[in-house]
């Protein structure tokens, strides 16, 4: 991936995030915040694509960064983190891979179907693990706070 391609991905990733923020009916005052998140995520994604071969790594680090961003910003603007995360992570959603997987399935190219499906699963698990690493920590902190006022197992 060269510089120009990377730049295109960062810009379109940001615009796509804005589009999805509108589509998800995010509050208007959060759109800039989401756009920065989407840009940051696609920037890290481009950098990871240049440095790592494996799909897991290419998606793990951007997801990690997006989750940290969403959690920090949620504290800053005092809003739930999920909407910010859902919008910022949009550029990583494997829409293309999912499309090709279904496409190969339809035209019954089973070998290609298998390889794209494995890639898709690698991407999805990379994303999920990236998000989990942060949200488990946040969840533990929250639960600790919650435990002080109410006794939950």
């Amino acid at each position: 991936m060269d510089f120009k391609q990377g730049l295109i991905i960062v810009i379109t990733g940001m615009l796509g995030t804005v589009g999805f923020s509108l589509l998800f009916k995010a509050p208007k005052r959060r759109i800039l915040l989401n756009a920065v998140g989407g840009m940051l995520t696609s920037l890290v994604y481009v950098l990871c694509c240049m440095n790592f071969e494996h799909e897991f790594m290419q998606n793990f680090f951007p997801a990690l960064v997006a989750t940290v961003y969403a959690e920090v910003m949620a504290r800053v603007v005092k809003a739930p983190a999920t909407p910010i995360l859902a919008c910022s992570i949009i550029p990583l959603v494997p829409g293309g891979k999912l499309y090709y997987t279904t496409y190969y399935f339809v035209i019954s190219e089973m070998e290609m179907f298998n390889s794209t499906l494995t890639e898709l699963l690698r991407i999805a698990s990379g994303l999920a693990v990236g998000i989990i690493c942060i949200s488990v920590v946040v969840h533990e902190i929250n639960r600790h706070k919650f435990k002080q006022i109410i006794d939950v197992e």
Partner: protein
Amino acid sequence: MEEKNQNELEKVLSLALDLGKGMVQCGAEINRVEETVLRICYAYNIKKTEVFSVISMVYATVISEKGETHTQMRRIYSNAPNFRRLENLNALSRKICAETPDIDRARKDLEKLLGDKRHFDVFICLGYIVAAMSFAVFFGGSLLDAAAAAPIALILYLMNVYIKSNGVNRLFFTALSAAVIGFLAEVFVHFGFGHNADMIMIGDVMLIIPGLMLINSVREMLCGDVMSGLLRLLESIILAMAIACGFAASMLLTGSIL
């Protein structure tokens, strides 16, 4: 006195569950919904609450100090991300927990938040178009592909407003959307409006593909909510199959015409 107390308990439970249902419908995480219900019940001095939620229902039992139990459940049929409402509901639940207002007043606030329904929204329409255009380029298409993706996104939005809101079967609707995307993309490319049909399709398919749902399901399962994670995973697989069927139909159609 006792009569009133019981009534009060039911009212608190009802309020908490309606709020929880609203949050699930707007796309909140399951553990957040359960926590909200717990917190609201706790704020109204109910010492013991058991709550369980998956994406299609919320279910809770409260036990009063005298040992009476009250159980209610809410069934959830449809959900679509609506983060503006989610944020408002979240703010309301915080307010309820902090101030414990009169239950009837809290309910009136909740009804007001759940009530605002709008049909056609220019901003969402714009969102569809911008998202489709950007992702057509994001995945390697040209600017002409992005231009071709825009009218298809507009049609998708109109379908969403005028067909989906009438309660059409979700699978059928998804397959129909995929078929429309595939058909129009092929037709556009055939007449020289766009270079790569698959880039146009990917850009538009991002709007209906359950990619976010897939990520959320894996995430929920890893967090311990295996039940709702599995439901979400199955739903996203079934939706992906519906998209595949829609593409198959459009390929057959364009193959025989063009």
